[in-house]
């Protein structure tokens, strides 16, 4: 494990590995999205209660999954950056943040577009929706910290601390629907007694979930490469000035 981490900690090797994965990630994303969208829009039945609005779930739930798992990934790499000072760790978290923010925004917007016809309102301040909005602000705050420091290593440290403090919000989002009464429905897929979604609706959901995951990986590789080269650019410019 330690050996593996050190392999990834070398930026040049990290770039070589991610560049090798990139074309495959892109191809898999396109294929999964094509299959997922076909299943979501054409080959899946309407829900017995929600009618066609169930199709909103196929873009809403995967976005919410990504919003939370990207945050967890950022928290893990930020902790790694703080403790072991791995050079790629902070940059990985920085590269992932805008993607996570986009998915969080999409989860909020598509959720509201489902809420209006089904609940009768675009927004309520229940525990699930509020904690999800806080997650969005955590992403924005994280990106703002990176932007507001000139010294990038200080920025990385401050941003990492924010992510770790905000990590407390992730279990709150996940379990808000069980701990408190909310308007948002309880978990349907990751429950103790198995999924409560019929397979004809669950399959497109899972395919879209995989598609979003590999889409994240594809965009992440592009962004992390930009971050690593960007740091190299700063170092070279500094050396240039000093010469």
């Amino acid at each position, binding site marked *: 494990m330690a050996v593996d981490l050190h392999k990834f900690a070398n930026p040049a090797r990290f770039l070589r590995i991610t560049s090798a994965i990139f074309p495959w990630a892109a191809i898999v994303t396109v294929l999964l999205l094509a299959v997922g969208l076909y299943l979501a829009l054409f080959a899946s039945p309407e829900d017995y209660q929600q009618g066609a609005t169930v199709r909103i779930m196929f873009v809403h739930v995967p976005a919410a999954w990504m919003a939370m798992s990207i945050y967890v990934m950022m928290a893990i790499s930020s902790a790694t950056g703080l403790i072991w000072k791995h050079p790629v760790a902070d940059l990985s978290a920085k590269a992932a943040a805008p993607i996570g923010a986009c998915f969080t925004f999409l989860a909020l917007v598509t959720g509201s577009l489902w809420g209006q016809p089904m609940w009768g*309102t675009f927004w309520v301040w229940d525990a699930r929706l509020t904690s999800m909005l806080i997650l969005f602000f955590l992403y924005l705050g994280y990106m703002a910290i990176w932007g507001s420091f000139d010294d990038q290593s200080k920025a990385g440290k401050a941003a990492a601390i924010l992510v*770790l403090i905000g*990590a407390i919000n992730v279990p709150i989002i996940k379990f808000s629907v069980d701990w408190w009464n909310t308007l948002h429905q309880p978990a*349907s897929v990751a429950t103790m007694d198995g999924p409560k979604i019929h397979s*004809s*609706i*669950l399959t497109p959901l899972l395919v879209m979930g995989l598609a979003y995951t590999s889409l994240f990986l594809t965009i992440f590789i592009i962004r992390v490469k930009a971050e690593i080269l960007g740091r190299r650019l700063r170092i070279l410019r500094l050396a240039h000035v000093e010469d």
Partner: protein
Amino acid sequence: MTRKRRRLYIVLSGMAVLAVAASLVLMSFEDSLVFFRSPSDLVEKPVPVGRNFRLGGLVEEGSVVKDGVEISFRVTDLVESVSVRYRGLVPDLFREGQGVVTEGQLTEDGTFVASSVLAKHDENYMPPEVAESLKAAGQWQPEDKK
């Protein structure tokens, strides 16, 4: 190595303290974090007449009476139930046996006069045919929730 160890312990203990603090805060705000009260909660901790709050539960089967724009029904949690009156449009998902969250206040006669009605969806998703066959097979348990 020792410095890394030390940083590891600092991060871990920071997270632990934070988790404890967060759970204490959340526990003390329990009442305001709850989005609605159930009819049983009302029996346990009565709310004074005229105070605004949200009441949630299932729309009792066979209790919906529509009279022009006024609609009345009973909200139940299968133990206790409360009559609700509301003037206005109800959301598409509003039906008997389904979850509902209403906002309003109790009147002297114990009726809840709602100013808004939101439908609450449950965690079950299935095509209509499956719902039909479950009903036909007698395995239909839409009210089988906590």
